[in-house]
């Protein structure tokens, strides 16, 4: 599972039945620096650090994460486990994060 910030939402007109009633989020994975400053949490608005480099991804969400929230998402085979039968889902939102307690080891 990785952490990422929700930066947008997607709605579909034509969709696979598995996407009925769910939300698709655009998620930017957190960089290491953002673990220590994930300002998006507790309604403090978007993170104070610039978004991480690298590509964002689309995450299937049933929890109702809003823009600016930090979520934990799973990728790969485990993303399809919550569904009955095969599902065309690559990334699944497993939790909405309320607080990150992060203390990297000081060198």
């Amino acid at each position, binding site marked *: *599972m*990785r*952490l990422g910030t929700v930066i947008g939402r997607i709605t579909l007109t034509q969709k696979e039945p598995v996407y009925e009633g769910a939300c698709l989020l655009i998620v930017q*994975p*957190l*960089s*290491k620096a953002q*673990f220590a400053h994930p300002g998006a949490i507790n309604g403090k608005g978007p993170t104070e650090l610039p978004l991480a480099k690298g590509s964002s991804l689309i995450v299937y969400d049933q*929890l*109702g994460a809003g823009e600016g929230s930090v979520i*934990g998402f*799973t990728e*790969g*085979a*485990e*993303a399809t*486990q*919550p*569904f009955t039968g095969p599902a065309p889902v690559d990334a*699944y939102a*497993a*939790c*909405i*994060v*309320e*607080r*990150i*307690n*992060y*203390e*990297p*080891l000081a060198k």
Partner: protein
Amino acid sequence: MNLARIDGNIVTAAHHPSMEGYRTVICQPIDADGNDEGVPVLAVDCLGAGLHERVILSTDGSATRELVKDPKTPLRNLVVGIVDPIERAKS
């Protein structure tokens, strides 16, 4: 299985039902000398690993599904052991 260091934990506001009652820790993948490798990942910990302890991280989804007793869990990473001081062959 990978070597990692516990760098914290998270508290969730909402989560998949299978995560209820399990501790989710932030694991920093490290090399044998303890240097950081890449971005931290999240894992389920049922061993009670402490802050900055070295652990072995498994990415076996089926083992995690068995542990949380829910075949529908989206979890994969699991702390499977807490590491004693590492012994290395001298090169």
